[in-house]
């Protein structure tokens, strides 16, 4: 080897080692802050109170129609990481009203859907970019997101803006309270309801189900594939969807994924097995195409008259059948055909709640916090705002005050939906919520596609959850 070549190779090797050292040190070397210090830092920052945030107020005005005094926020632009319509539609008027009243501006970033939101918010938190002043949060993400969010003391917020303490739904406040602080403000709630086609129940001569076995009977009797009608609607698309549906049955039958110590306990769990086998029986009456269905496909198929009865998200089914049925069936939709009922719960254990909320990231600009809290009042803090949100975003609300007579006229059965949402209970509180839903959903979809038995799935779920360190943690 010539001397020149040797020196070139040497230089390249030195450069590579240098890059490697720089890279590794940038990943590991700078992360030497002890965990306790981080926790303390997070807690200290999270102590920001509503009173402190109002110090920047420069001018006082009165909002027409209310006696609430608000500040001016001229020159402040709030960046809101959010979801598209119908979420945004619900806030659009309130944002405009806030901008007119306070002089502030809102830059609402509409992402395509919740997976994108989850990814973008977490990336933003972890990089401490401080890019957003408000972020839309699902309740399943609370344990993961909590260290990155400011804690808001609701009592102070309520006092300042004259919001009664019981303004928001009880279930939502319980869910979003961690320790003694409410970490987010809710704007939407969803639970799970049975939606049935009244016309099919009449056609096939069956009663509205009152128990789980009634539900199976309805699915079996209404199953008429030759006429394009399936008795049951499944959503077995791999991922979170089968988890959701399984969770309804597991909870309704009084079961749980975790034991009392918070560890996964699906193996040798008789209720978990019963719930899964019950679902397998229901799936025998489902369209085979439902192996690729998510909750959107499911509600579309109910509206289209292809499914007789389903157990699904209150929000989407309601949205579709009341407001925006798929174009191809819109002309034939009779809203009276599809009705929701509180699901038959053999043990009345309580239904699962899912909610959308708004949080204030820790890393956002300090001077924007007061403006963000003021914006939240305009979007969520009054019965008028809640009613507008419900009507415009077609079913999104977080206070029972929203369900007025005008709302009930436009959305039949909204009181059934609201009452069910008000008493629903939290999802498992685990920082690995997304991993848990994926692990369980994937194994369940294997069962429904015939790749494994129910017993094998439960063993596999336990194994995966344990390998991923999924556990329920104390909510404090």
């Amino acid at each position: 080897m010539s001397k020149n070549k040797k020196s070139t190779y040497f230089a390249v090797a030195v450069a590579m080692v240098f890059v490697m050292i720089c890279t590794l040190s940038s990943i590991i070397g700078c992360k030497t802050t002890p965990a306790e210090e981080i926790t303390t830092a997070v807690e200290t920052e999270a102590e920001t109170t509503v009173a402190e945030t109002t110090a920047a107020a420069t001018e006082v005005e009165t909002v027409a129609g209310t006696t609430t005094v608000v500040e001016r926020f001229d020159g402040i632009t709030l960046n809101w990481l959010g979801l598209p319509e119908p979420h945004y539609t619900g806030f659009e008027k309130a944002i405009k009203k806030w901008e007119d009243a306070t002089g502030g501006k809102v830059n609402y970033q509409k992402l395509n859907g919740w997976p994108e939101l989850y990814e973008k918010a977490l990336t933003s938190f972890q990089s401490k970019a401080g890019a957003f002043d408000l972020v839309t949060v699902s309740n399943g993400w609370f344990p993961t997101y909590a260290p990155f969010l400011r804690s808001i003391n609701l009592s102070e917020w309520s006092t300042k803006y004259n919001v009664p303490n019981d303004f928001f739904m009880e279930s939502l406040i319980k869910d979003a309270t961690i320790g003694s602080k409410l970490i987010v403000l809710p704007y939407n709630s969803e639970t799970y309801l049975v939606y049935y086609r009244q016309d099919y129940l009449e056609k096939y001569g069956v009663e509205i189900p009152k128990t789980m076995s009634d539900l199976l009977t309805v699915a079996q009797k209404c199953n008429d594939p030759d006429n394009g009608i399936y008795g049951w609607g499944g959503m077995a698309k791999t991922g979170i969807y089968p988890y959701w549906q399984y969770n309804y049955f597991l909870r309704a039958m009084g079961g749980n994924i975790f034991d009392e110590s918070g560890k996964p306990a699906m193996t040798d769990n008789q209720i978990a097995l019963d719930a899964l086998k019950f679902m397998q029986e229901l799936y025998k009456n489902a369209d085979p195409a439902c192996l690729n269905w998510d909750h959107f496909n499911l509600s579309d198929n109910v509206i289209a008259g292809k499914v007789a009865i389903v157990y699904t998200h209150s929000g989407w089914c309601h949205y579709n059948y009341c407001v925006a049925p798929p174009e191809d069936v819109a002309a034939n939709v009779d809203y009276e055909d599809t009705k929701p009922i509180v699901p038959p719960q053999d043990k009345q254990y309580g239904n699962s709640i899912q909610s959308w909320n708004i949080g204030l990231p820790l890393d956002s600009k300090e001077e924007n916090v007061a403006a963000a809290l003021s914006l939240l009042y305009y979007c969520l803090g009054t019965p008028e705002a809640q009613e507008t949100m419900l009507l415009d975003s077609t079913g999104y609300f977080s206070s029972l005050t929203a369900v007025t007579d005008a709302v009930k006229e436009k959305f039949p059965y909204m009181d059934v939906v609201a009452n069910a949402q008000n008493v629903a209970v939290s999802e498992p509180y685990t920082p690995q919520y997304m991993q848990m839903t994926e692990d369980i959903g994937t194994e369940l979809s294997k069962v429904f596609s015939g790749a494994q038995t129910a017993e094998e799935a439960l063993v596999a779920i336990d194994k995966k959850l344990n390998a991923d360190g999924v556990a329920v943690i104390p909510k404090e």
Partner: protein
Amino acid sequence: MIRSRAFTLLLMLPAVVFLIIIIIYPMFFSLGVSFIKWDSATIPEVLKFIGFGNYLKVLSDPDFSSILSKSLIFTISTVLLQLAFGIIIAIAINSQYVKHRNIFITIFLIPMAISPTVAGVIWRSLLESRNGLINVFLRNIGLPTPFWFANPNLALTSLILVDVWQWTSFTILLISAALLGVPKEPIEAASVDGASVFRVYWNIILPVIRPIIMIVILLRTMEAFKLFDLIYMLTGGGPGVSTYLLSFKIYKLGLNNFKMGEATALSYILNIIILIISSIYLRFFRKAIK
């Protein structure tokens, strides 16, 4: 001499810096991440070095062997089918009986020009089980209507067919170009000596275009292993995990479950697999050149 060497290095500097920023640094960064426990619940300040923990975890995942075998089945099937159809169509287009060769080439190139995401949307509606055009046609002529993407035994095959539809044109393009470079004299001499058409193709044309075939195999194998967009659009990995391939699993781990450590570890495993296969191909390729 020294000045000219220094000048050469100076000219190379922007390219080298660019290369370091966009390739070398991210490569080492991701390699570093693959040795770290980093998931959605991790605050960046408390990342923990766990050695080969992520590699061991993804390799011991009960689904790993099934995902790897499905990736191999997908890759081998698509590459072989694309090659077979590509060679047959390229020979047909380049035969003396076909006029306006360029028109045919342009038509066959259309699938390749379509974005895989758009192709996914098109095929998803075409193969929809109830109202998809293909099933409507099959129903009208009295044939059974399969659940193309909802049947666990058929979903991978459907995915293979769509990928073959889209990328056979790549093979056609390259083989057509290679056929144009085949010298006419040996073919004419063989014909005069009474060799059959098959013997001419097998003994004269195929050896000449073999290097191009090797390149097609190499490129398509690498691409097939990395396939993501079509799976995302058509099946989402389902039903069950019947269309979960390695690249889709990486996406799920990294951008769905935010397990960055495991996702990068699996990415490096995928890279190693592609490297091994590529080096085997290249050995054959060199022999073919000789």
